[in-house]
């Protein structure tokens, strides 16, 4: 196990990068705690796989240092870093049995036969493939193969971290839950440092203690699932996490109030802003309420998402979504209000920290 630090990591795939756009990773500074379960979350092409491969050494960063427990490993090749990595598509050695597959990383490192057998049997027990131990790996199902890939990482008892690169992509939905639960269980029992790349927020939020959200080659926020939900640091996080995503509405500032057309909502305190940034408010659909009074809105459509319904409406010319409570009726004259608890202010897409208590107003928006 190890603490992993990334210092000023920049990476470009092409030679001689000129502009910021040439960098797949713009500037990454982050420390991953020993024994933490992290998810790297972001849309395709945001650089999360590059980051993972830089940690495992499959990719050499253009700039910056990688440290394991304070020791610089940037120049070390993958095999010397003692990292386990599970890929999107299961990698198994076709010609070997399950047992031999698991023993392979140990044999390559010259571990004695008896010791290797002991470790392999432990891992077979852990991943539940004991009955298949002597079968050819080729004939197994996708999830069993992926378990073998995982198992090859687990046999080395001293791995610094286990990295997952969208490991459940090819797994059937019901098996996904089971495998994810097993990963969580392994993490809880053995305290591996785990990093899990995904673009699926449910996967990220259920797996990780800390979610690292990436966007266009940068880390935009690191936080607990709750942080990401309640206090997205960047409008991208607000939009990307949550279903549906956060409402982002352009606004203007009037003292300690944000203004939407002729309506105002008080902020907990007057924000300190430098220059004249682009201002937006961000409100989760969960905090948009139907109230007898408030800002008039027009219904566009109502979507049934199973456990709840989603109201799509326009308000002062902006699209908003709201989560309807069970059995909630939509009145003919629709008025919406924002719960001040859920009100976030964004300046140039970054969240403005407003500490202090929200002002005492019954409904967030008052005419």
């Amino acid at each position, binding site marked *: 196990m190890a603490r992993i630090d990334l210092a000023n990591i920049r990476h470009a795939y092409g030679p001689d990068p000129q502009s910021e756009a040439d960098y797949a990773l713009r500037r990454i500074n982050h420390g991953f705690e020993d024994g933490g379960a992290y998810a790297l979350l972001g849309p395709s092409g945001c650089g999360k796989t590059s980051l993972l491969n830089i940690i495992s050494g499959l990719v050499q960063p253009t700039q910056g240092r990688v440290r394991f427990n304070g020791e610089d490993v940037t120049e070390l090749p993958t095999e010397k870093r003692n990292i386990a990595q599970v890929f999107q598509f299961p990698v198994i*050695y076709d010609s070997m049995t399950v047992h031999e597959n698991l023993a392979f990383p140990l044999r390559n490192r010259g571990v004695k036969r008896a010791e290797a057998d002991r470790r392999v049997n432990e891992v077979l027990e852990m991943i539940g493939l004991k009955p298949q131990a002597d079968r050819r790996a080729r004939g197994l199902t996708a999830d069993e193969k992926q378990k073998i890939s995982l198992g090859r990482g687990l046999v080395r008892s001293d791995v610094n971290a286990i990295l997952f690169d969208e490991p459940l992509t090819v797994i059937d939905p019901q098996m996904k839950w089971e495998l994810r639960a097993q990963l969580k269980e392994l993490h809880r029992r053995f305290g591996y440092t785990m990093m899990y790349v995904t673009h699926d927020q449910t996967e990220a939020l259920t797996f990780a203690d800390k979610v690292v959200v990436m966007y266009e080659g940068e880390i935009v926020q690191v936080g607990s699932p709750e942080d990401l939900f309640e206090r997205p640091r960047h409008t991208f996080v607000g939009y990307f996490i949550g279903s549906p995503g956060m409402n982002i509405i352009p606004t203007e500032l009037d003292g300690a109030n944000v203004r939407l057309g002729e309506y105002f909502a008080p902020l907990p305190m007057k924000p300190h802003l430098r220059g004249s940034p682009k201002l937006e408010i961000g409100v989760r659909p969960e905090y948009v309420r139907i109230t007898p009074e408030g800002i008039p809105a027009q219904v566009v459509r109502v979507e049934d998402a199973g456990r709840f319904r989603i109201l799509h409406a326009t308000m002062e010319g902006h699209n908003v979504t709201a989560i309807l409570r069970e059995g909630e009726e939509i009145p003919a004259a629709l008025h919406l209000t924002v719960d001040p608890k859920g009100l976030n202010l964004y300046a140039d897409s970054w969240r403005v920290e407003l500490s202090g208590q929200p002002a005492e107003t019954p409904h967030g928006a008052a005419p």
Partner: protein
Amino acid sequence: MKPTNQKAWFLVLPVLLLVAISALIPLMTVVNYSVQDTFGNNQFFWAGTVWYEQVLHSERFWNALLRNLIFSGIILAIEIPLGVFVALHMPRKGWGVAACLVLMALPLLIPWNVVGTIWQVFGRVDIGLLGATLSELGVDYNYVQDPVDAWATLIVMDVWHWTSLVALLAYAGLVSIPDAYYQAARIDGASPWAVFRHIQLPKMGRVLTIAVLLRFMDSFMIYTEPFVVTGGGPGNSTTFLSIDLVQMAIGQFDLGPAAAMSIVYFLIILTLSWVFYAVMTRDDAPSPTDKEGAP
């Protein structure tokens, strides 16, 4: 129950006709010849299995068959490993890929009798670049007189002509291996040999099966090149079954024995190819009851 009719046969009729005209009827002609005797004048007499017995008891046939087997064995033993070796060292990206592929494909584009002619001239002691150079260097090389030299020339020629086919097939197998396998191998700390043994070789398995089958069948039927280079000599040392067959059928006009030999020859190739195929694909079937013990 719906009444059944036989109209669907019309759908397969065109294929049946094509196969009949292109394969079955010519083959049946040969079968026909092999059980009859003729003294010219288009008169045929039933001969039974006489020609078959004659062929199977003739030392000439067994010697030619033995030569064929040795020749195929040698060229497989050289071309398959060499082709794999070449494929492993071919570039994977950049302009080198196209250059390599074109260069490798060149020998395959040359008509077989031209290949024979090239080597026939190349190896000549008086004017051939290879032959003349060797004799200048004091090497006693003469494929016209020395059976060993004749064999060596034929083998080198075949290796030159066909190794690139094996290499191209192996290369196709290699480039289809996803990157994740190599990455996983690095994570697992595998040596280059282990990567070859446990990733590249198994993944090339199928194309190598095809390569072995093609090269076996083709070399076992080899005719044009030795005919042009050595004409089966010196003596009978490079008289393969096909050369022998042509001598018998056209040179001596022994239609019956030649036909019988053709059939036997065909059956041998069919059987050996099947054996190769069966042995090489034995592991492919996913069998849930596979209970091989882990060593």
